[in-house]
């Protein structure tokens, strides 16, 4: 699964992109975040408070309970602050 990070989520994790294979127990965005949280100290800090993180699946904003599969492009980032 292709995963992108932006803004401070990327700063904590240390890189903007990773391609991972998820265990079959990971079926939603929230489960994916919980799984990623254990990958490193950086991931732990990035995913510490899930309420402060937003997610996109295949470049559309999605809710935490949205289903994900290995062919999806997923992104995690803070609430947007453009304009």
């Amino acid at each position, binding site marked *: 699964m292709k995963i992108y990070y932006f*803004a401070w989520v990327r700063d904590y994790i240390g890189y903007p992109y990773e391609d991972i294979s998820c265990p079959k127990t990971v079926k939603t965005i929230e489960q994916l975040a919980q799984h990623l949280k254990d990958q490193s100290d950086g991931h732990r800090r990035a995913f510490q408070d899930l309420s402060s993180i937003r997610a996109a699946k295949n470049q559309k904003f999605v809710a935490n309970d949205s289903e994900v599969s290995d062919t999806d492009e997923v992104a995690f980032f803070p609430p947007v602050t*453009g304009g």
Partner: protein
Amino acid sequence: MIKISIQNEEFDVTAEIKQLSSKSIGAIATFSGMVRDGSKDSSLISLTLEHYPGMSEAALEEIAQKAKKEWSIDSITIVHRVGRLKPEEMIVFVGCASAHRHAAFDGCQYIMDYLKTDAPFWKAEETKDGTTWVSERENDKAAKRRWHLEESN
């Protein structure tokens, strides 16, 4: 016509307005958002704008399409700059052209309100003390909700 551009380069507002214009256009409303130093001690050095390539273009396109559907708008231009910008530089430009002024104004405001909450851009502020990511503004969420209320009336 809808024109979306995400770019680091400066651009000429007069040229953008000319492009929006045509014989059927009587009104063009625009919005320009600038890098503003909101700190008490004028300590802002720069603002860095990051985006999610691919998704950001699609998000702006979708917002523009919705605005065109909601009001009688002929042409829309959205330019959003990314990268490192200095105080007073332009961050975003939205232009809406219509036969009549109220459609142009409403469309332009609608696009800005949705852009603030639905387009994947992030700002980091650089001061002498370092660089920090800007937090989301509750005001912006409220500004967007206002349109939902009007839709359900």
